[in-house]
C-alpha cells in the first residue's frame, strides 16, 4: 500500500515503514535501548531526507519513551527531582541544537552534521559495547569474576558547588554535572533524533553514581520532555516533522517491542550485547562509507521557496 508522506514529500510503501518500525522496535525491546540511533540511519538509507528523518524520529521517540516511562513510574522507579534537573539542561541543549541545525541547514551542511555525529557516536558506543561484552564473555568462559564498582566512592564530582539532595537516588551532589549531561543529551536529540539514553544511562551510573533501579526510569522521564520539545522546535523552525511517518513508525515500534522483550528472555544477555554492538558498528561503517566514497550524483538542488 503506497502512502504519500506529506513532509518528506515522497511515496513509500506503508508496510515497509511499519516493518522498519517493527524491526527496530523488536531490537529495542530485546536490548532495552531506545532504538532512535538505529531508526534514523535506517530512514536516511531508505531515502527520507536526513533533516526529516531526524525530526520525525524525535517525534516517534516521544511516544515510545512515554510507554516505557509510565511503566517505570508505576513501579516508583523515577527520580523526578533528578529528572527535572536533567531537563533544565535538556531544554538549553534542545534550543542550542535546533538553532545549530537550522543554521547548518541554510548553509547546506546539515546532512554532513547528521552523518558525522552518527559516525562519531555509533563508533564510540559500538566499540565500547563490543569490547565490554567480549571481555565479559571471555571472563565467563575462563571462570573469573567481574569486579563491580563500589558504591559510595567519592570522585571529583563531589567537589563541585550548588549541591542538592536527591532523596530517591540517595545522593547529595552538585547540580552542575546533571545539567551538563542534560545539555549534551538535548543537543544530541536535536541533531540526531535520538532520546540519548545510550549516553545518559552510563553517565548516570558511572558519573553521578545513581542507583541502577531508578536510572532507566529517570532517563526515560527526561527523554519524553526533551524529545517533545525538540519535535515542537523542529516543527516550528525547520518544518521537518512528518507526523504521518512518525505515526507509522510508532505503530510498528510498539508491536515489535513486545516480541523483542519476549525474545530477549530466551537469549543470554552478553551474546545479545555483542550482537547489538556489531549492528551498531555496521550502521556506523555504512554511514562513514557514504562520506568517504565519491557519490554518483555530486549535484543537489534545494528550493528556497517562491520568488
Amino acid at each position, binding site marked *: 500500500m503506497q502512502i504519500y508522506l506529506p513532509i518528506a514529500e515522497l*511515496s513509500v510503501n506503508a508496510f515497509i515503514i511499519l516493518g522498519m518500525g517493527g524491526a527496530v522496535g523488536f531490537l529495542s525491546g530485546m536490548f532495552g535501548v531506545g532504538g532512535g540511533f538505529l531508526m534514523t540511519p535506517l530512514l536516511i538509507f531508505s531515502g527520507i531526507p536526513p533533516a526529516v528523518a531526524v525530526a520525525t524520529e524525535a517525534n516517534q521517540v516521544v*511516544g515510545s519513551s*512515554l510507554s516505557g516511562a509510565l511503566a517505570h513510574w508505576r513501579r516508583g522507579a523515577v527520580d523526578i527531582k533528578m529528572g527535572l534537573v536533567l531537563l533544565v539542561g535538556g531544554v538549553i541543549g534542545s534550543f542550542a541544537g535546533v538553532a545549530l541545525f537550522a543554521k547548518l541547514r541554510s548553509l*547546506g551542511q546539515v546532512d*554532513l552534521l547528521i552523518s*558525522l555525529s552518527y559516525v562519531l557516536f555509533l563508533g564510540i558506543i559500538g566499540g565500547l559495547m563490543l569490547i565490554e561484552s567480549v571481555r565479559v564473555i571471555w571472563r565467563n568462559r575462563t571462570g573469573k569474576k567481574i569486579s563491580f564498582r563500589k558504591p559510595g566512592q567519592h570522585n571529583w564530582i563531589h567537589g563541585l558547588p550548588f549541591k542538592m539532595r536527591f532523596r530517591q537516588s540517595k545522593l547529595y551532589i552538585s547540580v552542575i554535572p546533571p545539567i551538563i549531561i542534560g545539555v549534551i543529551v538535548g543537543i544530541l536529540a536535536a541533531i540526531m533524533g535520538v532520546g540519548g539514553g545510550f549516553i545518559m544511562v552510563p553517565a548516570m551510573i558511572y558519573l553521578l553514581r545513581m542507583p541502577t533501579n531508578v536510572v532507566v526510569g529517570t532517563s526515560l522521564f527526561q527523554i519524553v520532555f526533551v524529545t517533545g520539545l525538540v519535535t515542537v522546535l523542529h516543527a516550528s523552525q525547520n518544518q521537518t516533522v512528518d*507526523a504521518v511517518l512518525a505515526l507509522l513508525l510508532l505503530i510498528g515500534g510498539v508491536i515489535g517491542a513486545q516480541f523483542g522483550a519476549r525474545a530477549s528472555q530466551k537469549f543470554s544477555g552478553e551474546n545479545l550485547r555483542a550482537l547489538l554492538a556489531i549492528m551498531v558498528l555496521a550502521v556506523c561503517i555504512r554511514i562513514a562509507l557514504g562520506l568517504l566514497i565519491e557519490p554518483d550524483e555530486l549535484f*543537489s538542488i534545494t528550493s*528556497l521557496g517562491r*520568488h
Partner: protein
Amino acid sequence: MNVHAYILKLLGICVMVSTLSMLPLQSLQAEELVTDLSDHLVAIESNFTGTEILLFGAVEADSARIRALPRDIVVVVRGPNEQLVVRRKERRAGIWMNAKAETFTKVPSYYAVVSTRALNLIADDTVLSRHEIGLNRLKLNEKRDKTSNTEANFKTSLVRLKAKDGLYHEVPDGVTFLGDTLFRAKISIPANVQVGYYTTEVFLFRDGKVIHAQTSPLYINKSGFERFIFNLAHRQSLLYGILAVAFALFAGWLASILLRRR
C-alpha cells in the same frame, strides 16, 4: 499653430493605431489558433501518482491551400517560479561534502515543452531562445556566488535534476495532428508539482517563424489528507508541532495501557 500641431498629433496616433491593428489582423486572416485545455483547474490528490492534462486546438485557415502547408505546434507549460540553490559536493579532508553553490532566482518549478517534432527542425536557436522554448534555453537568472566556478556546470545540473524528478521535460512528438486542422497534446503532471498558477503557451510555427501564439492559464491545486498536513505544517507550524507531540504521547499512553492489560 496650436490647433495644427494638435491635429497633426492626432493624425499620427491614428496612423499608428491602424498599423498596429493591421499586423495581427493580417495573420489572423491567414491562420489562427484556437485552443483549449481539458481542464483549467487540476486538483491532484497528494497520494495520487500524478495526472495528465489534454490540450486540444485547431488551426483555422481561410483557404484550403494555406491549410495544407506544413506547420508546427509547440506547447510550453510553465509552473510558478521559485528560487533554487544548486550545490556541488567536493572532497574536503577526505570527506565528500557540499562545497560550491549557486543560486538561481527565477526557476520555473515545472516546465514542459511538447511539440510536433524536434525543436531544432521547427525553428533556429534565436527564435526559440526569444520565447524560451527548450530546456537548454531557459533563463534562470543566475546569481553568482563568490565560491562558484564556471567550469562546474550548475545550470545543466539543475535542469538534469529537475528532469530526473519528472518536473522538466521535452516531448518532441507530443503534439499530434488529427487531419489538417485539429491537433492535441498530452502534458503529464507528476504528483510532486508545486501548487499555483501555471501558464500554457501554444505557438504556431511556419517556416521557422512564430505566426500566432496563445496563452491560457492553468491552476493546479492539491487536495486530500496529506495536503492538509502539509499546509498545517507550513502555515501553523507551532500548532502542528504541538499536535504531533500530542499524538505521539497519546499513542505511547495507549500502548502502555493495552500492554499492561495483557
